[in-house]
């Protein structure tokens, strides 16, 4: 189990020692076919599935309408809603109460009530009421829909005001027309934002799991002690253990990046070599964290719980993967500064979508380097202490 063959470990030059450990490690990985299969197949499957799942796009929303006025004006107003790409009228009801089940059972996203007298009020230059009902449980979706509805109503209201107030055609009043333009992701495809994020996440999980469990396993089996009594130096052992995982990590990265670009068509505006170089920095931090977990966990189960609760979940939530960091309480924003995934997400998204270069991304790169070097130094120190 320890050496891939009958060779003795720890004899020979500096590099050949490390090389032997790498050989042994690869031999072990090869023996555990399922392990290798999972480390290659899982990222592919995950990116393919989750790339589609992670979408905040709200394509079109279904409308249930209760037009109690049925006038020329109310129909014109309704058209303002259905002429946009946001809303599709799916149902019509006669009384406002009949709308409730549609909203309750989520058959319609938004309900529109036009009370009787709508047209009459407008013609008489009086305020006409319009009610909108929506399900607020999903606050984000509800917010977006409410925003659309508000825009449509405000635009319509303004044009009615101008039309009805003008006394003569010679009276001219200017409006301010907002003209939104979106840079870097003009169609606002959330996929372009999320897929690079999923890539980073999968990469982190694979490399951290491999390292932390791989080392704790040897501890559990007692084979780590056996390696300790050989003349191998601790850093040689660590280097030899980490390099194979680095190679697997890079292989995974190439695969998932290929999927992101060619399958999901995420535009790649920046430099690929830069992305690889900075990914190397990121893998440095995740391997370091894996190593760190292995120095504090007594069993594989503990390592798993620690990885899951102290690293994966907080990283998932606080790195800006889905929830914008700028919205978090200041204290938690500070916490996010020690999360390497945060910087890597900025790097991946910056290079992919904005074509950012090292000129823009050096602070993130420096942060990753700093975190990576400190966590590896710390873990190596802890590792050696345990051994001595």
């Amino acid at each position, binding site marked *: 189990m320890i050496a891939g063959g009958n060779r003795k470990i720890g004899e020979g030059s500096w590099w050949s020692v490390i090389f032997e450990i790498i050989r042994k490690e690869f031999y072990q990985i090869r023996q555990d076919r399922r392990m290798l299969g999972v480390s290659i197949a899982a990222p592919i499957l995950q990116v393919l599935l*989750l790339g589609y799942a992670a979408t905040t796009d709200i394509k079109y929303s279904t409308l249930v309408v209760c037009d109690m006025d049925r006038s020329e004006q109310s129909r014109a107003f309704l058209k303002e809603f259905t002429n946009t790409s946001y809303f599709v009228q799916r149902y019509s009801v006669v009384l406002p109460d009949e709308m409730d089940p549609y909203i309750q059972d989520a058959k319609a996203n938004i309900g529109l009530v036009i009370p009787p007298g709508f047209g009459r009020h407008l013609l008489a230059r009086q*305020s006409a009421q319009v009610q*909108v*009902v929506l399900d*607020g449980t999903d*606050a984000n979706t509800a917010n977006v829909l409410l925003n659309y509805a508000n825009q449509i109503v405000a635009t319509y209201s303004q044009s009615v*005001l101008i039309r009805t107030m003008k006394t003569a055609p010679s009276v001219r009043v200017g409006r301010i027309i907002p003209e939104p333009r979106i840079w870097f992701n003009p169609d606002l495809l959330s996929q372009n934002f999320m897929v690079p994020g999923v890539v980073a996440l999968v990469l982190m999980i694979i490399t951290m799991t491999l390292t932390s*469990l791989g080392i704790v*396993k040897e501890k559990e089996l007692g084979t780590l002690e056996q390696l300790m009594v050989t003349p191998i130096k601790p850093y040689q052992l660590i280097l030899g253990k980490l390099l194979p995982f680095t190679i697997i990590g890079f292989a995974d990265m190439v695969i998932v990046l290929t999927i992101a670009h060619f399958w999901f068509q995420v535009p790649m505006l920046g430099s690929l070599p830069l992305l690889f170089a900075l990914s190397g920095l990121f893998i440095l931090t995740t391997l370091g964290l894996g190593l760190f977990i292995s120095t504090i966990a007594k069993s594989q189960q503990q390592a798993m719980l620690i990885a899951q609760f102290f690293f994966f979940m907080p990283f998932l939530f606080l790195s800006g993967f889905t929830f914008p960091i700028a919205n978090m309480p200041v204290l938690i924003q500070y916490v996010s500064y020690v999360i390497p995934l945060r910087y890597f997400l900025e790097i991946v998204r*910056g290079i992919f979508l904005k074509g950012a270069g090292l000129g823009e991304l050096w602070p993130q790169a420096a942060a990753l380097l700093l975190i990576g070097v400190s966590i590896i130094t710390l873990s190596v120190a802890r590792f050696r202490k345990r051994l001595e």
Partner: protein
Amino acid sequence: MYRALKPIIIKEFRQIRRDPTSLGMLLLLPAALIVLTGYALNFDVKHVPMVIFDQNKSPESRALLEKFKHSEYFRYVRDVDGYTDIEEDFLHGRAKAAVVIPVTFAHDLISGRDTHVQILVDGADANTAGQAVGNATRLVLDYSTRMVADFFRRMGREVYVPIDFRPRVWYNPDLVSSQYLVPGLIGFILVLTAVISTSLTVVREKERGTMEQIMVSPLRPVQVVLGKTIPYLLISLVAATVILILGYFLFGIQVKGSMLLLYAGIVTIIIGALGQGLLISTVTDSQQVAFMISVFSSLLPSFLLSGFVFPVSNMPVVLQVLSNLAVNKFFLIVVRSVMLKGAGLSAVWPQFVYMIIFAFATLGISMRRMSKRSV
């Protein structure tokens, strides 16, 4: 049956007790996570950093820009002198939105012509960008309407608001994200702890060779499976209760519906998730593989595929079908309906049926696999 079960449960509990670190993590971390995430997570898009490119520099343009500077949706960063500055700021992440006032702004308005204000947004984060566009557009439209009204008022006319818009938001009137996310978090955390804690139990005994010892004992697979799941069911129930209490005291999230129904849902999902973990444990040979499979089959799907953050209805049809594999999806519907809407069993029974089928299937297959090994 029960007498045979008891020793296994006791043994499993003893093993858990011997590792207080893990037990502590199983009980305390869910609580810590709910506090952290409940405060940190929201989609509210406020204080978006914004730069201003005012080519007009007139009293009129400044009046509009004041509105932006005072809006809670935007945070004024600086004035810039050109589009290249805006691009620079976007690239460095110093700004995510920009307002551009044309040279002719005041002139257009004074001579009664329409004028256009550009709103530039960094679209990389599609959700934030979409909301920022919406907020900026509304701000400009409101300002414009008020300006038009003032114009007529100066002409001595009585001005009115043509459409009196009254939105009514059900269940979560203030549109607070935590009302939506915290109930979802219960499912997320329960599924994760349950899958992870059981996915190692059997495979650990396999690695150590103690599984053979259990197998040659007169215990039936049903007893082994029950003995291994019941302790974790109890731990998870305690964790769920802690989360509910914290949710109430910290975030004011009340259970509008029946508490009994909610707990029925919690027990069902825990059993389903324990079954999933056990199944992983019986099909794998090493803890490493078991861990990876459980992370990739529970952490990411529970987060992304179940509707926890991303509504399932927005996903492509194929994925909506696949999302049924994430059992958490059904629990989320139950927990949100019962907690936020006060729904009864008549509204959520299909979800219960699915969760029960899932639990029976995973536990059943695990038992079959175990009995095959023992033969």
